[in-house]
């Protein structure tokens, strides 16, 4: 090759390299400055309506933290679709934040990676001790019998939202007290010719499917993950799933179109536009209902009613322990500072401010003294969270559980909506398949 040719090649290579360097400049996670103990990186989950709003809510609080402790916090708010992949990247590379939020149902799965710091009693004491938290919220922080690796930060619970206007039109005086009443009320509210239905559900959301299968299964006396068996296809689980499906399949109080619904905006709209009388949804929905043009006085909230009498062995469960946990990454170079931040964010004062902004429930008992949480609606959610919530199974394979059971429910809903018969046998067949997959997948 002639020298000139070599120069030309080298030049084009350099050009290429420059071009690519130009496209570098990506994100800067700021996690590499771990050596400085005066800074922390915090990955917050997206709790507000947008990531921008989250930054506005958390920014001033984190500055307050800096004034108190002298530790600067680099905040990154991560949307839910990314969060698990980002944690995966952090876990497999060891390059992560100091402090991070996780969905509380992931706790046991993430605990299995060993990437997070244990909250043993001594550590827990540094963040206010066990007594600070509502006991039920502590059940969803990790595998039972092991020191948890997370503590709760935001609480959520299911409740029954009902449209007062539609209730009044149908001559129903108040929230249903039993499941049978709910079904009866829903029938009165259902007027397919007007496009009006008793209950709206998120039929295509597998997580919703898993939550309701879990809650209603427990009401019917199901026992999951005991003695090494998943127990998805026990008669009690089948009865629980059927209780949910019958709303659509037998009682026909759900619009078949709901089988396609995957996100809140779809059924919140139906509820606010008087197309659905009732919703079973988590507490954060108060904000969404308002956005859709409903005043606080237009709707009521009650616990999801239980079957009466409760089937043999049934538990009084009206929600799973929903919410967000916070943890400390083991690779953090500033564990003390990280724990200070956890302590700060879970302190009653901050709990008041943050949960009020997000429409979530404080996990610190003392925060409820605040008048903002004395509204009838919040009180109901608080009671549900404290008294009738059970944590989703805290097992490393929780994701499989939600996927398998949730997808079974989703498929059954699609069948029911298409007019195919949904019987105990078809439900059992689906759940047996899910059960088998669970056993072999682990």
């Amino acid at each position: 090759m002639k020298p000139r040719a070599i120069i030309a090649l080298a030049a084009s290579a350099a050009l290429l390299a420059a071009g690519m360097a130009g496209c570098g400049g990506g994100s800067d996670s700021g996690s590499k400055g771990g050596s400085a103990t005066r800074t922390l990186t915090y990955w917050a989950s997206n709790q507000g309506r947008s990531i921008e709003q989250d930054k506005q809510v958390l920014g001033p609080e984190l500055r307050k933290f800096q004034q108190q402790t002298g530790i600067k916090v680099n905040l990154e708010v991560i949307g839910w679709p990314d969060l698990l992949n980002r944690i995966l990247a952090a876990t497999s590379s060891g390059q992560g934040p100091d402090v991070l939020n996780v969905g509380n149902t992931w706790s046991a799965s993430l605990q299995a990676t060993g990437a997070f710091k244990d909250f043993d009693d001594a550590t827990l004491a540094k963040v206010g001790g066990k007594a600070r938290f509502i006991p039920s919220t502590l059940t969803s922080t990790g595998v039972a019998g092991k020191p948890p690796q997370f503590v709760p930060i935001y609480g959520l619970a299911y409740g029954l939202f009902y449209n007062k206007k539609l209730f009044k039109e149908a001559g129903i005086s108040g929230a249903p007290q039993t499941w049978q009443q709910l079904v009866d009320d829903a029938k009165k509210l259902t007027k397919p010719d007007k496009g009006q239905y008793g209950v709206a559900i998120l039929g295509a959301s597998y997580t919703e499917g898993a939550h309701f299968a879990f809650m209603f299964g427990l009401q019917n006396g199901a026992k999951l993950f005991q003695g090494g068996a998943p127990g998805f296809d026990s008669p009690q689980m089948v009865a629980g799933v059927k209780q949910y499906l019958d709303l659509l399949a037998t009682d026909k109080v759900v619009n078949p179109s709901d089988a396609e619904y995957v996100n809140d905006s779809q059924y919140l709209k139906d509820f606010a536009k008087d197309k659905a009388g009732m919703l079973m949804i988590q507490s954060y929905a108060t904000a969404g209902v308002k956005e859709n043009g409903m005043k606080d006085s237009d709707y009521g909230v009650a616990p999801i009613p239980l079957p009466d009498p409760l089937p043999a062995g049934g538990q009084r469960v009206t929600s799973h322990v929903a919410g967000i946990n916070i943890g400390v990454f083991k690779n953090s170079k500033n564990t003390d500072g990280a724990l200070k931040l956890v302590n700060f964010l879970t302190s009653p004062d901050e709990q008041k401010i943050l949960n009020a902004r997000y429409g979530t429930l404080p996990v610190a008992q003392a925060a409820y003294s605040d008048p903002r949480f004395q509204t009838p609606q919040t009180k109901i959610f608080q009671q549900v969270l404290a008294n009738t919530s059970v944590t989703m199974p805290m097992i490393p394979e929780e994701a499989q559980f939600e996927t398998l059971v949730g997808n079974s429910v989703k498929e059954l809903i699609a069948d029911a909506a298409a007019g195919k018969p949904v019987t105990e046998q078809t439900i059992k067949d689906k759940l047996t398949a899910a059960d088998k997959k669970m056993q072999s997948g682990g």
Partner: protein
Amino acid sequence: MSRTVAAPAVDTSTPGGERRPPAHHGGRAGRRFRRAALPYVLLIPALVFELAIHIVPMLVGAWMSLLHLTQFFIRNWTAAPYAGLANYRVAVDLNGPVGSDLLHSFFVTAGVTSLSLAGCWLLGLTAAVLLQKSFRGRAALRTLFLVPYALPLFTAVITWRFMFQRDTGIVNAVLGDQLHIMSGHPFWLLGGRSFVALVIVEIWRQWPFAFLTLTAGLQSIPTDLYEAADIDGAGFMRRLRTITLPMLRPVNGVLLLVLFLWIFNDFNTAYILFDRPPGAADVISIHIYNASFLTWNFGQGSAMSVLLLGFLLIVTTAYLLAGRRRLRHA
């Protein structure tokens, strides 16, 4: 690369395939070496990137398929215990739930691929042949038919997702309410019809590529062939059978293979159309993605991917060999 230096039989100074004496006689050995190295130097950048992004990760993936790489070991994945062929045994155990699901997904993918492939090729060929002869508006139609190919994949698929909505979509409105071809409003994105929906979207997306390639192929057929056929008085069908199709054979060879691989491996269309495809549209790439990224069981997912690669390798090799033999006999 080392063996290339010791390849004296290869004449690099000659452009083209024919052997001719080197242009510069008696060049010094170093110079000759540099000239011999030139094609390799030109290939190196491409090679480096392909190795870095495709080959090395693929080998790593193959190795991972031999490990129990679950969330317990993701933090230190080199410590994941060696699993031997355990992941493969689970994947091919057709009586087990994982294996039978994988097989189901494989059949779904094969069905989607063969129907889409046939559809794309037929539409592409028909349009290319019908637009072979010049007429007014031909250029406009050619351009129009290429638009779906130019449309960014995700906007096209999102539009179809809207069209397939049960209550607000155009498909039910037109087929059910306006043309009365169907009764009622079925779900297209749930249950059995999702398969049909996926095939339709795949065809809509990919047929322009077949059309484009076949149009290009038609243009390279010498016109005197057709002129000779005209003199013989050959009709449309006979010209199609005796000239067009045989002349398109080499183009078809590449086109069908490329389309097959693209559709079989297509993750994007079903992912955007359904998010989580129902059973009837559970194509294999999404199936494997869910098997690994949702549960963090990457060993299992890798084993499934390797099996998939093995299948594609066999099909491709067989196809290429068959094509070569046919050419030789032709």
